[in-house]
């Protein structure tokens, strides 16, 4: 099975400039390496300057964080269940399995912190983004970079110092994931001296553009319903 065509994913053709500005590599180079893809929509938003974020409560930050970790955890768990990760060489398999385990742990942790304020996970549909090792890897790179940008944006804005401290220890793990994923994909693990933070609304917009979050399971084309973290 081949991965999705780049055009199918980069629907608004927004990736090129964004990646060039952010990561100092050309669109052509990127396409040659096929390091990114489902990635495209996510990465495109990374280059946008962060808008002045509206005031947001810590509970809203945690709820968004939970949804985002659920998105990631489901992406990895599903890739495991589809056999995508099993088809990878040992070093890459270990990488993918470790990231999955960590994201599932993050879901558990944030759920526990939110307690009854935690909301149920939405349904996710990753299309072909986790059905082949190549598509999986490039989407993972984009997701992990996006998580770093998300936590980089929200962590300085949360009110509670204990929460700030706890988020710092999650942020560094997401940054480790991003660097490891990039190394696996043949991209620069640490492309800039400082990571660009992103406002929560911009991260939401990036996620929206991927259509990974669905109201209802997509019918047909797959025997099992989408997973729900």
């Amino acid at each position, binding site marked *: 099975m081949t991965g999705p065509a780049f055009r199918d994913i980069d629907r608004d053709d927004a990736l090129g400039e964004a990646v060039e500005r952010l990561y100092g590599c050309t669109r052509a180079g990127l396409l040659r390496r096929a390091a990114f893809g489902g990635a495209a929509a996510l990465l495109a938003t990374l280059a946008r300057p962060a808008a002045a974020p509206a005031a947001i409560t810590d509970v809203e930050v945690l709820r968004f964080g939970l949804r985002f970790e659920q998105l990631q955890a489901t992406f990895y768990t599903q890739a495991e269940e589809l056999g995508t990760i099993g088809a990878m060489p040992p070093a890459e398999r270990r990488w993918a399995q470790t990231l999955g385990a960590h994201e599932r742990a993050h879901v558990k942790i944030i759920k526990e*912190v939110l307690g009854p304020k935690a909301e149920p996970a939405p349904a996710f549909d990753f299309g072909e983004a986790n059905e082949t090792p190549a598509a999986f890897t490039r989407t993972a790179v984009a997701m992990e970079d996006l998580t770093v940008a998300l936590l980089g944006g929200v962590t300085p804005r949360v009110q*509670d110092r204990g929460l700030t*401290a706890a988020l*710092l220890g999650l942020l560094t*793990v997401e940054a480790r994931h991003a660097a490891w994923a990039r190394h696996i994909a043949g991209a620069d693990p640490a492309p800039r001296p400082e990571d660009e933070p992103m406002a929560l609304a911009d991260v939401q917009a990036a996620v929206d553009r991927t259509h990974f979050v669905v109201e209802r399971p997509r019918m047909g084309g797959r025997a099992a319903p989408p997973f729900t973290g």
Partner: protein
Amino acid sequence: MDGLDGRVTRGGMVRMAAGAGTVVAGGAALARLGGAVSEAAPSAAQDARLLNVFLLLERLQQRFYAGALERGALRGGLLAFAAKAERQESAHVRRLAARLDGGADPAPDADFTAATSSPERFGRAATELEEAALGAYIAHSAALTREAVAAVVPILSVEARQAAWIRDLAGADPAPRAADPPRDAQDVLDGLRAKELLR
């Protein structure tokens, strides 16, 4: 728990740190987190004290990578890493020194002759220095003023990228825990002295 309107409990937060630590690594992180958040309320003086600790760690790393590049014992991936990390640590030093605006402490004293003498020793020392900086940033950044937190976080995540990168190159697990533990700055500095990476 003012910021959470009482809806998220301190107990929950503590479990967040505990859960993060115990998933893979045990409960030590929890005790440390308590220490990290019990510092005095943020102030300009506290910012200066903590930013100077971070500056010391960044300067130490920059000198280590510069020394390794001069020494010439690295090839391939390790060389590329050292060159990139040296440039990034230089940028971090400039950023932190500028933020301290004349209040920066003198540069630390270190001798990296032994630590840069072979690729293996370089890999071990680089990992040690990266993890030391990470632990201190995680432990103390929450005690900074809001503006200083915002300045430090984009640096912190790059330190984490570097830590994963060198661990991968050195054959270690790039991300050994689901949440990284804080490390008290004094313990970090004592540890570096014990390993002769700081005088």
